[in-house]
């Protein structure tokens, strides 16, 4: 089994988000970066498939140069090699643009059996890069996957539907799956893994080398904090005092107790 797992590097969960002077993006100097949390489940699933069926896991990402650290993290956790399509533009690229770049890089690689992605990114939240990538690569796909079992020439997956419903789907190989968060428990990198990662191959491409021109098909015109939908009454003070006042408000103001 040869699996490509697509990873994105995103602003760390606890980053301070401030709109920059252009009014169209966040101040990147404020940000720390980490592997997109949903993607870590896709990586773990790829590693588990390799452990059962043998083969190779390649971690691929499109991002600025800093993204190499996320690929190294994947290598430290056990991926065999990395592919990075490097361009500053990717930090705010839309899903279609990113999928085009990933497709161009994967077409350069040997035929694989599976492509895995996370469900969505914690920054842009498009939730569609995998689906678009499948279309551009001409692969069948299934989304929001909570179980994967690889059989001879096909893969059986359990898809999550809404409101507690599920569905089993059978797909031929190769195909692309977007993995639901929580499908597994992602492993931590070991010290040995981190050491080994330094010597594992990382193939870098520029967009020029892949012959792709980056253009944005979704343009952010303005970025701003959301308008409050309600006027929140904030209660401050010692816990006992706050609790007593809240109960009073719930009883006599909101009348829900």
């Amino acid at each position: 089994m040869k699996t490509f797992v697509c990873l994105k590097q995103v602003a760390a969960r606890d980053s301070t988000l401030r709109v920059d002077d252009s009014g169209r993006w966040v101040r990147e100097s404020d940000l720390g970066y980490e592997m997109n949390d949903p993607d870590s489940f896709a990586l773990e699933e790829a590693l588990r498939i390799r452990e059962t069926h043998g083969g190779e896991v390649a971690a691929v990402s499109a991002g600025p140069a800093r993204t190499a650290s996320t690929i190294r993290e994947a290598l430290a956790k056990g991926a065999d090699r990395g592919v990075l399509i490097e361009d500053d533009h990717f930090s705010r690229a839309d899903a279609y643009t990113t999928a085009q770049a990933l497709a161009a890089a994967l077409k350069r690689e040997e035929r694989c059996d599976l492509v895995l992605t996370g469900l969505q990114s914690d920054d842009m939240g498009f939730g569609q890069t995998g689906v678009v990538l499948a279309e551009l690569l001409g692969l069948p796909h299934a989304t929001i996957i909570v179980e994967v079992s690889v059989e001879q020439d096909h893969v059986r997956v359990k898809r999550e539907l809404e409101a507690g419903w599920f569905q089993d789907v059978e797909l031929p190989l190769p195909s692309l799956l977007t993995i639901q968060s929580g499908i597994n428990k992602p492993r931590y990198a070991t010290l040995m893994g981190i050491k080994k990662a330094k010597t594992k191959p990382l193939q870098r491409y520029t967009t020029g080398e892949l012959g792709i021109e980056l253009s944005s098909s979704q343009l952010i015109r303005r970025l701003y904090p959301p308008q409050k939908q309600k006027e929140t009454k904030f209660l401050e003070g010692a816990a006992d005092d706050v609790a007593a006042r809240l109960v009073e408000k719930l009883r006599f103001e909101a009348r829900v107790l």
Partner: protein
Amino acid sequence: MSVLVVTEQQGGKWHKMSWEALAGGRQIAASLGSRVNAAVLGADVGPLARQLAACQVDEVFAVEHELLGQYSPDSYAFALRQLLDQVEPNVVLFPHTYQVRDFGPKLAASLGRPFLSDAIGAKYQDGELVFVRQLFQGKLNADVTLSGEPPFFASLQSGAFRADQLQKTETPAAVTQVEVTLSANDIRTRPGEPFRESKGEVDLSSAEIIVSVGRGIKDAENIPLAEELAEALGGEIAASRPICDNGWLPLERQVGSSGQTVSPKLYIALGISGAIQHVVGMKGSKTIVAVNRDSGAPIFELADYGIVGDLFEVVPALTKAVREAKES
């Protein structure tokens, strides 16, 4: 110029977000000064198409084929491409359902077009259609435009448009049967019948009071803190996705896009940041209380009462205060 709303049904039953998408479609069409049409796909959609026709639309397209009886991304994308070729709409709108997430971006990509997902609003401004999307887990909003030529594809978030704004019309719109060509060979995946796993023993949707926990609870050991508060209030305990993923509470207690949708009288969110996936499941609650360490957490955008602080101090105090109030 026309706006096309692609509705969703399964086994002859509407997905209720279809009506919200239709309301969104009407609003967007009104701002563009264009017609609004609706499409419904399936094996047998006659009765559904007639219902749609009475809902303030200009024309209904009934896309029928036996291979559309069971959803697959290939069959839906293939059929809709044929519909788009015939109708040539400028804007194509969908409800942002799991199913649309599965085929919508594929459909758009097959035409070399972007797909704007999960919009919470739309306006026509300076000659351009501007959509509003949430970024960074709902912490920031963005006004977004799509470049290039129509059709423009977008999906609308649950609750972003109000279905109750739709009215029934006395003269129904025309229903057009749309012929599509599909063969079994076009469908590369083999979908099974949908099934339900949990017995659905917990019906949170009828609960009047819900105490819900998120990542801020930190450890399974701390869940009883929230359970005691729920018990004191006579309410149900619920959780955001990460808590159920960790197995700290059963999956059937999950609120959000992949769990249950609730609208209790009182919803108390403990250590829940307010990511979109959770919010869509609880924003219809009458009164919302949020306790969170982070004053910038998006949950405070929709809370009626907010406590910025340590839930490990606040929750026991609250349980005590509720018990005292009930005894008095």
